[in-house]
């Protein structure tokens, strides 16, 4: 199984699903030079959001810890610990802040 991300050019293969540790992320470099943070939760579902932490400007969200509130997964920024909903990109600690999200899927390796 591979993890694929939808970008302007179509579906981009990011990595093998098996190279993701559940609860941890990786960063992916996108064709336009921007960065996505890709995660998989304990149930094996993948998520992808922008990698830049809007509170500090550093590209580090992929290195945060994954958790869940009321069944919704989030990642806590490793710098100042704000939490971001992995499905909507919304910051759970500051209503006015959000990061972008990317459509993501797993696909059988052909």
């Amino acid at each position, binding site marked *: 199984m591979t993890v694929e991300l939808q970008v302007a050019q179509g579906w*981009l293969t990011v990595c093998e699903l098996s190279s993701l540790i*559940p*609860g941890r992320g990786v*960063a*992916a470099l996108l064709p336009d030079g921007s960065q996505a943070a890709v995660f998989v939760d304990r149930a094996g579902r993948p998520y992808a959001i922008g990698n830049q932490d809007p509170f*500090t400007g550093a*590209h580090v969200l992929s*290195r945060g810890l*994954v*958790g869940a509130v009321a069944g919704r997964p989030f990642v806590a920024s490793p710098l100042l610990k704000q939490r971001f909903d992995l499905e909507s990109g919304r910051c759970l600690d500051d209503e006015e802040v959000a990061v972008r999200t990317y459509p993501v899927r797993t696909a059988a390796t052909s």
Partner: protein
Amino acid sequence: MTEPLPTIVLIGHGMVGQRYLEALAERGVTATHRITVLCEEPRPAYDRVHLTSYFSGSTAEDLSMTPAGFMEEHGIALHLDDPAEHIDRAARTVTSRSGQVFPYDVLVLATGSYPFVPPVPGKDAPGCFVYRTIEDLLAIEEYAKTRTSGAVVGGGLLGLEAAGALQGLGLTTRIVEFAPRLMPVQVDEGGGAALLRTIESMGLTVHTGVGTQEVVTGEDGSVSGMRLSDGSTVDTDLVVFSAGVRPRDQLARDAGLDVGERGGIAVDARCRTSDPHVYAIGECALAVDGRVYGLVAPGYEMAETAADDLLGREKEFTGADLSTKLKLLGVDVASFGDAHGHAPGSLDVVWSDSRSGVYKKLVVSPDGVLLGGVLVGDADSYGLLRPLTGSVPPVAPEQLVLPAGVGAPVALGPSSLPDHAVICSCHNVTKKAIAACATLAEVKKCTKAGTGCGSCVKVIGQLLPAAADKGLCGCFPYTRSELYEIVRTRRLTSYEQLLDGHGRPEARGGDGCEVCKPTVGSIIASLAPTLGASGYVLDGEQAALQDTNDHFLANMQRNGSYSVVPRIPGGEITPDKLIVIGEVARDFGLYTKITGGQRIDLFGASVDQLPRIWARLVDAGFESGHAYGKALRTVKSCVGQTWCRYGVQDSVRMAIDLELRYRGLRAPHKLKSAVSGCARECAEAQSKDFGVIATASGWNLYVGGNGGATPRHADLLAQDLSDAELVRLIDRFLMFYIRTADRLERTSTWLERLEGGLAHLRDVVVHDSLGLCAELESLMADHVAHYRDEWAETLQDPERLRRFVSFVNAPGAPDPTVKFVPERDQVKPDLAVLTIGGAVR
């Protein structure tokens, strides 16, 4: 035809003005009156008290004091950016700058005060500022972007706050105070001296006893320096005047209302001015006791008084308390009540420790009533002492000023306060009113206590019924130490087992959270050898539990790059090893800094460089210094007997032995230690979690100290120990701490929380009162026997090394956003400042 409603016009929408409107709303007056507010500033009332927090990330919205929809709901007409310019008392009208005329039946002045700027030449040059409004802050922030130094004229409460803000903006900062000490109004001479040391240790330059004679300007006409009354000249790019405030009473003067000799609109005990149709409240008013109050709590009380008077209710404002607590980050200063001991016959009880910058003074009457006090360097007890003012404290005042750990333990808790004690002085809320609530949220909602300066929140917390749920987080109903016991006795080695078997029902099978994951990770790591689990923190599931620092075995810095810290046990290093560190830093372009913990930190490594950097360091015999983990950081030492003429034991050898013994030990909080070769204490052992000081006949062991924002001297646990006794005792102490402390609880707070305190600790670890010592020692023996260097292991394992890439889909590519710019011949992060919700963070 219906009668027109009577009209209230409020001039000034500051903190007190808003409180007045709320008081009217609470009393139903908004339904029976038409209310118009004239506001000079471009925004509705905001929290001026926390203005400075704007620089540390609060937004203008965070500071807002006007609940959304409040004006609409109560039919209040608010005119922003349109100050009142003229009052015609005969016609009972107010004319605003835009030319509108507002008739009134009742006029309320809440115009606050303006910052006093001494009439020195150059005071209006570009680069001169005052510190009162959000607009002032915006202007300072903008100007400071292109400058490097700043000065504050005035070393009072506000001046210090402004100075802290300038320093926070990256300016080298000085303070010029005319009086012979800082905060002359609030603290006495001893307190001023302690305060001075603390402020200077933060890197600010302080000039006391000198005035500012002139603001010197450069060729372009903007500020370039200041000439002081002692004849000296100092360079500065920016000057903030904070030399006191003056009541804004001009409007009232022009209207012929009585004002005080030294300013302030004169009011009676009901806050009425010399015209019965006009009230004055807040900082613009001169109260009946002859004072103009520059604090928000008395202003709020005036607002309530004026609102009550409107309804014919009896309430009088005759004076208020002048308690204050400085909010400047890192400096604890508080003064309350009769701090200067003006009352006849009053006595002082003083504790002064100039080494640590702590000064505490209580003023008591001859019959033991607490009248007031000054606390510098350690103001923890402020929240409790302030409400005790006016009564005889339940314990001797001498005990109240002694630092924790000295003398007999003091059992002074909020339970000792009388019911009528005022806990929150901002909102005048008593212990009784607070005790009627169940949660802090409820207290804030029902009584407003805790929503002003915030200094009472700690005591409020202690007054509330203990929360029934002591669980670590939303996932576990247990405390950290309970989880430790579960993991130990059930021999659990996996987080998922623990979560699914012992988590809250709704969290089982889920993803956990960022609070419990690292906590459990640390518990498993510190028990690993005993449980037979792999101690390696990046194995399997353990990897997903670690904070990013532990995950990458390095410390993430603000731009996403990492610092690398090789262990240098005891601070002893050979020239060859020093050269290796230098070469590695040079070859990878890293910023190097010698730290307070006798280490050399290398900053600015990207993820993908870490393995290559460590390969060279491990080759040269270095190990991971665990600067990233909640683990033992350093054991500092002085040169001791080997080199120093005073030394009585070999402190270097002992420090190295201890550091190697406890390296890699995971704990609830990072641990630091030091060993000094004699009582001169050059290694500062008494500010460490465990510190050792040599005596002629052995070692003295101190525990529970810490530096940082709330420093605490360590307590003497045992004396004249042999090498073996010392090590055994530290083993037991550390393991007992790891077992029973809360998440992120350092040894100092743990020791203070421990029931029975130091005596209990001594019973457990020295006299083995719980019969635990053999087990504690064996846990430590397991740790020591199984220690392996995490970096050496990581480098041997290609699987693990695969994690050290910036991008999973471009393993060779470094992260292009991690950039550096030169500074003092080295590098520093180059990071764009982001804008969120209109405010710069």
